[in-house]
């Protein structure tokens, strides 16, 4: 790929890039053996659907990714490259992704209304404009609720993100805390998943037996559903603990680890696949940070360099394990970036015309829907909003988005009734 004339490649630049991207340290230790047997993975694939959202936090530039405009005054320095789908070109920073294009559908006519990080994120993850009187749940909570199985061992909704990049999210709202995201920070297991030092397996088992005995006696004499729920929560934590290996990337075949890459995002994406395979219904993997108000082009080289290879590896990996047909994959941001390039070689926040990519369950690979004008400043064909996308996710998963939830007996449509699915990209 041609050197970007905006990058200075000095030591200062590399240092500030590290700070900017929050890149962390050590490579994972490689080890033998895959996580689940291929047979088990196929079995899982047959009966269960799941969702993986790759969230490019900060606002990825659609002009540097899915809808390039080379040779225009908004296009920037990069070329557009051909992909495995004749007639479809994407940004040259995504060569591996380009080879996967037969599996990927593009929505290029997205207008998400708000160029604000917080509001945009809400709009993109709830499929709604913020409304008075109701807080809508994120697609993660909705997926966990509608696709999850009762008594499943793993939590239904997990968010993998780099340390320092997130916090406790109110993303399940009226669906309840059971479907709220469990944070997995920096790819590490949930806090306190493992036994503390000094507590042997034997001692833990023994104390837990007594806890259980006392709780059972109490629950029996009070006949309360709440006491049973409390006791059950310990059993659930134990089930998650028994699957704690899922967080240990070293248990993965080193060749697989190498394909994803040992940088943070690569490991997090691989962890996402492991979590899905272990029974988590919805995993969101965040990649920071795309908020490129300055040095947009240089930073996109770095960021997309981190994204491109693992993303392609993921699609291959899911396909190899027979999971691609039952896993919906979505690549999104909270917004796009301005076609206009500012005086610091940056692009600013932009919601009027940008793109989202989808693959996997129910998605027509290779389809492209929506067009923007020559400079990318407006949608010219098939404009859609986050509501249409939300409908599309649910339809792709075989769910009915026109049904309602009934929190406190108040009917709340699962998806925005004013929108419907983008059938052009559905199988």
């Amino acid at each position, binding site marked *: 790929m041609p050197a970007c004339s905006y990058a200075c490649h000095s030591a200062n630049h590399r240092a500030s890039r590290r700070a900017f991207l929050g890149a962390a340290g050590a490579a994972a230790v490689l080890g033998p053996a895959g996580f689940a047997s291929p047979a088990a993975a196929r079995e899982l694939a047959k009966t269960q659907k799941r969702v993986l959202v790759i969230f490019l936090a900060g606002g990825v530039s659609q002009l540097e990714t899915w809808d390039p405009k080379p040779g225009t005054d908004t296009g920037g320095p990069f070329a557009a490259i051909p992909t495995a789908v004749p007639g479809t070109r994407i940004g040259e920073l995504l060569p591996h992704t380009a080879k996967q294009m037969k599996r990927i559908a593009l929505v290029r006519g997205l207008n998400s209304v708000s160029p604000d990080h917080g509001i945009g994120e809400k709009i993109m993850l709830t499929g709604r404009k913020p409304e008075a009187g109701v807080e809508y749940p994120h697609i993660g909570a909705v997926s966990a609720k509608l696709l999850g199985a009762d008594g499943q061992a793993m939590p239904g909704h997990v968010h993998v993100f780099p340390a320092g990049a997130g916090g406790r999210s109110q993303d399940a709202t009226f669906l309840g805390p059971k479907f709220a995201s469990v944070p997995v920070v920096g790819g590490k297991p949930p806090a306190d*998943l493992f036994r503390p030092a000094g507590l042997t397996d034997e001692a833990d088992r023994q104390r837990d037996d007594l806890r259980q005995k006392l709780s059972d006696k109490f629950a029996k004499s009070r006949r*309360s559903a709440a006491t049973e729920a409390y006791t059950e929560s310990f059993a659930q934590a134990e089930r998650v603990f028994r699957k704690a290996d899922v967080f240990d990337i070293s248990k993965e075949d080193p060749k697989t680890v190498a394909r994803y890459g040992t940088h943070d995002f690569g490991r997090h994406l691989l962890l996402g696949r492991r979590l899905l395979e272990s029974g988590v219904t919805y995993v969101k993997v965040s990649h920071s940070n795309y908020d490129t108000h300055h040095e947009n082009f240089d930073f996109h080289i770095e960021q997309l360099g981190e994204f491109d290879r693992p993303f392609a590896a993921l699609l291959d990996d899911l396909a190899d394990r027979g999971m691609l047909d039952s896993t919906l994959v979505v690549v999104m941001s909270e917004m796009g970036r301005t076609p206009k390039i500012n005086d610091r070689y940056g692009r600013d926040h932009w919601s009027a015309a940008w793109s989202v990519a989808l693959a996997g369950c129910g998605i027509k690979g290779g389809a492209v829907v929506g067009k923007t004008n020559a400079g990318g400043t407006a949608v010219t064909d098939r404009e859609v909003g986050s509501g249409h996308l939300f409908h599309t996710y649910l339809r792709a998963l075989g769910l009915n988005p026109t049904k309602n939830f009934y929190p406190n007996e108040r009917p709340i449509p699962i998806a925005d009734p004013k929108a419907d699915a983008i059938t052009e990209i559905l199988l």
Partner: protein
Amino acid sequence: MPARCRAVASVVVVLALSAGGFAAEPLHARIDALIAAGHPNYAKEAAPVAGDAEFVRRIYLDLAGTIPSAAEARAFLDDTSPGKRATLIDALLAAPGYARRMAQVFDVVLMERRPDAKVPRAAWDDYLRTTFAKNTPYDVFVRELLSADGTDPKTRPAAKFFLDRNLEPNLVTRDLGRVFLGRNLTCAQCHDHPHVGDYKQADYYGLLAFVNRSFLFPNATAATAVIAEKADGDVTFVSVFDKTKAVGATGPRMPGAKPLDEPKFDKGKEYTTAPAKDVKPVPAYSRRARLAAAVTSPDNPAFARTAANRLWAQLLGRGLVNPVENDHPGNPPSHPELLDLLTKEFAASQYDVKWLVREIVLSRTYQRASEVPAALADVPADRYLVANLKPLSPEQFAYAAAEATGETGLARTALAAKATDAALDAKLAPVVAAFRGVFAGRPGEPEDGLTTTLDQTLFLKNGGVVRALTVAKAGNLADRLAKLPDDAAADALFLAVLTRPATADEKADVAAAVKGAATRPAAFGELVWALMASGEFRFNH
């Protein structure tokens, strides 16, 4: 007393009440009579009154926000005086723990764990504790909350209800309805409630009209912002269900009441301080200033009713109207006469919170056992045949854990002569903060019922804070137990953590657990954990 006579006695009491009240009979007795009258064969089917062990734990949790120390429990259990429960109730009501407990409860009712942006936590805590320590009449308290504008530092904490909602009019309206009137009017922002005929859009905007002219000055983000008000601005609304898009309008009014009479002013006379750049306007007439009186007026029956119901729900685990914030004719109270009685008496007492709390906890209804009698096949949710379980609040959980494991005792010893309640609270603050961090509801979300998320369970199972409390260290419970012979240790363990003696079975379990263990202190550390993590500890029963 034969069942027939008891039934007759109940009827007599009920008749006496409807005839204008038998004034000499204390409220707690009338509560019991009405509860008994609310279920056929109540006397036969209801659980007995709770034993001393269950009572002492419950009353400490409800009135002091923590479990009794082992010594306090022992003293109560050994006390043979007939009136000991009433004596203990009075002692707890007079102690600082009561104010702390009520402050914690009302903090969550009023502020739902919203971030402290414009009124610092310490000032708000202080204000609440002082309110309940002084036993400020509830209507006076609510008038303070609704009339403070934040300019006077002495009354600024009371303005937190508005200030830390950024005076966002829809949020304030919804919470006014919810907290003080028992009406969750959320749906009515956009249309008449489709199912609850009583909750109309006009009601929502009638409330909003009290605050629609108010705003934060100089702006919504300043930490020292105060509440200012313009002299103009009218409230109109359109129903999203109405195809004709007819526009409604309303002045300030309580739900179901007439709009207020509002004075008119000549042009130029609407302000005493006219709006100007960086100048806080002061209107000649303030809509918001009328809110406090309108909410707490005797002409607004929802106020006293909701307040009484809320206190009942706090102590009994379930409102007479349930949920507390959904009071409307389609959701009638389980015991209408009782709710009317509590409402009337609470108002007549000048909204004396401590008095009403005392009457409720003196009742046999409150003191009923939580263990379901074997003969009772079905436990209806709303008949008070058996005491309801109440999950410990994050604060109760923290304080109880600290007391049970001996952490509170250690803190007291360390402080020695300087062990004031404030100093003790400060020492325990990190434990309380840790429990709050894991168990508290998310900001703006209701905090009722039990939640059991993975992070909460792991916090209890493997977390460092809980482990530091339970593991034996010099002077704490596990350490002291390890020095006792097995039998005595088992009793001391159960008394300290579960506020009751150990059964023979449980003593055997303790002995077995300790026998195989490498060291006694380690074994007792894990035993303390097992009791603390059990359902029996998690709930106020």
